[in-house]
């Protein structure tokens, strides 16, 4: 460790990290645009300049904190008039060509340039030259759109591809005031990590096409969660508009799992959590909000509290039921299911769909079960959809529990099963298969709290980001009630 002094405080800092990291780690705010802790420092924006005392008898110098290594006995001042003046001058040049787009810009509210201009900048521009006019809407592939006028040429996006995905795709084209960001030969961006560009861009130059103009960021309520798309379980924040509609998933820093990044598959996996509800009174054609029981006229809506005793009666009369949990089930739901399995005398299993071929070297594991390790450690055995269908063909009764479990088993296979199989599904949506006798609604993974264990054994947390629709009960509670009812039924018999 190296001893340095920042703003009069004696600190011990890591000698391998640049000065800006030492400042940030000890709660000293130094602005930054081009510096990103996950990328190589280039020192192009010069906004992180701080004052460093010179050798005895020498004047102090202003240096870029991102490109300056710490050295023993360094005396750093971030708040002096000289440092402020230098940063203000840099900011004035950065704002020279930056359009006054804040009312339209998606980045407004989480924009570094906006924040530091507010803190340090001046309200009026002194330049009489016109601002440069460039492309406002340049598409860079399916995910990202570039606004060249807003770009401050920090080159974070260029370095993201060279440093993180290791495949250069962007470059700074042109010279001087004509410099713009562009892809090589105007080719669209490719790869599964383009969405990160919108996160790392310090201004609103690179924005996400999917999120564009969907919400003002200060209206989004953020909730810590874990990505559901693969067994990596990246730490994410689920952001919902006014606490109701989930608008975006963004990565959140986790040194052990995903650092600052996440893949586009996970980022854009909003469809499973933003399904429309079934029409009032109906059980099909959308998300189920209560329960459904098969009567003479097909599936009929019913309250969950009234359906669970029916399920218990059915399971008590049809012994030898199969119990299969969805791969999205949390540890807490797994424990509740384990008790139910014990009561039923069933082998605890969880559904394990085949790898989806999205595996890469960076984050995506290709395994679509976010809690495979957690469920395996609890004692659940993986079962492939095809093997499960073979089991169900001969089983007297079955309980499939967890979000999207019917969809993952495959509706084609389920449709062919005989109606003498008594199938109970705890799922987001019901389906009109002859074998499906009862369906009970469950919350999605953004509507429940719990834990998933990722492929490396890291325990990821899930929090309630949006409230589940009225009538939806937690899966672990439903399973616990069912176990209790089952004990009551068998003791009566």
């Amino acid at each position, binding site marked *: 460790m190296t001893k340095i002094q920042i703003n009069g405080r004696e600190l011990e800092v890591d000698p391998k990290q640049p000065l800006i990291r030492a400042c940030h780690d000890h709660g000293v705010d130094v602005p930054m645009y081009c510096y990103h802790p996950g990328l190589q420092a280039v020192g192009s924006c010069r906004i992180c300049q701080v004052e460093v005392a010179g050798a005895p008898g020498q004047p102090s110098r202003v240096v870029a904190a991102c490109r300056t290594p710490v050295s023993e006995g360094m005396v750093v001042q971030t708040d002096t008039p000289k440092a402020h003046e230098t940063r203000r001058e840099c900011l004035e040049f950065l704002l020279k060509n930056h359009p006054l787009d804040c*009312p339209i810009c998606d980045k407004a509210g989480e924009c570094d340039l906006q924040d530091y201009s507010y803190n340090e900048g001046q309200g009026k521009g002194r330049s009489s030259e016109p601002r440069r006019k460039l492309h406002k809407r340049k598409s860079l592939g399916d995910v990202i759109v570039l606004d060249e006028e807003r770009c401050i040429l920090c080159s974070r996006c260029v370095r993201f591809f060279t440093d993180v995905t290791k495949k250069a795709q962007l470059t700074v084209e042109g010279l001087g005031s004509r410099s713009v960001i562009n892809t090589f030969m105007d080719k669209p961006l490719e790869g599964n990590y383009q969405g990160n560009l919108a996160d790392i861009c310090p201004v609103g130059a690179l924005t996400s096409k999917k999120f564009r103009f969907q919400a*003002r960021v200060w209206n989004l309520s953020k909730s810590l969660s874990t990505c559901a798309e693969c067994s990596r379980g990246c730490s994410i924040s689920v952001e919902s508009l006014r606490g109701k509609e989930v608008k975006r998933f963004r990565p959140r820093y986790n040194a052990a799992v995903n650092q600052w990044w996440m893949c586009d598959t996970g980022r854009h996996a909003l469809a499973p959590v933003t399904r429309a509800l079934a029409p009032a009174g109906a059980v099909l054609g959308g998300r189920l909000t209560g329960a459904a029981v098969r009567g003479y006229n097909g599936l009929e809506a019913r309250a969950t509290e009234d359906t669970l005793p029916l399920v218990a009666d059915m399971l008590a009369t049809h012994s030898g039921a199969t119990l299969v949990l969805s791969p999205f089930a949390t540890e807490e739901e797994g424990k509740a299911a384990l008790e139910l399995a014990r009561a039923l005398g069933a082998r605890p299993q969880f559904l394990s769909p085949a790898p989806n071929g999205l595996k890469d070297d960076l984050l995506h594991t290709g395994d679509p079960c976010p809690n495979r390790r957690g469920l395996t450690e609890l004692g659940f055995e993986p079962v492939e959809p095809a093997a499960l269908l073979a089991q169900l063909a001969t089983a007297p009764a079955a309980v499939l529990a967890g979000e999207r479990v019917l969809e993952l088993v495959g509706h084609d296979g389920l449709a062919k099963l005989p109606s003498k199989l008594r199938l109970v599904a705890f799922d987001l949506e019901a389906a009109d298969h002859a074998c499906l006798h009862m369906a009970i609604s469950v919350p999605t993974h953004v509507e429940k709290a719990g834990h998933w264990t990722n492929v490396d054994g890291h325990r990821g947390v899930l929090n309630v980001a949006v409230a589940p629709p009225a009538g939806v009960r937690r899966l672990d509670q439903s399973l616990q009630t069912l176990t209790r009812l089952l004990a009551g039924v068998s003791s009566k018999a």
Partner: protein
Amino acid sequence: MVVVGRKELTLAERLYLPEVMRGLALTFGKFFEKPITRQYPEEPLPTDEVTRGQPRLVVKDDGNIACVSCGMCEIACPAYAITIDGGETDRAIEREPKKFEIDMLRCILCGFCEEACPKDAIFMSNELELADYTRAALVYDLEKLRRPKSALQRRIDYVYKLSARWRRAK
């Protein structure tokens, strides 16, 4: 205990009728004076540019709404009356409101939205009347809020005049 003595009445007062006559004279006298009341629904209230009526959205001369759904009025609104959802357009200004709702029952006509707007898109009109059969009908949507710029021009000029004065004072 305090005893309040009663005033001794004069003869005319005790006779009662003269006092009634006096009162009737006052009443009949009013018949021939200019009325000071207003027949309100038939005779509308006089308004001018200072009137801070319900907020309305400006439709520019090219037919497009001036609002870019930046959300400044939504944040400035102390009564949480405004809800905006933005969306993309093909025009040069890429953003426009897809949903813009003002709950007129919540609106307190404070004019903060007008002050907060960076695009001169929302102004306080001279419309003050608010009556309907349901609460839902009083949550005004984009269609009910649109007004051509000419209809709000007097207020716009007034606001510009005021802000010029503030700028000079600074």
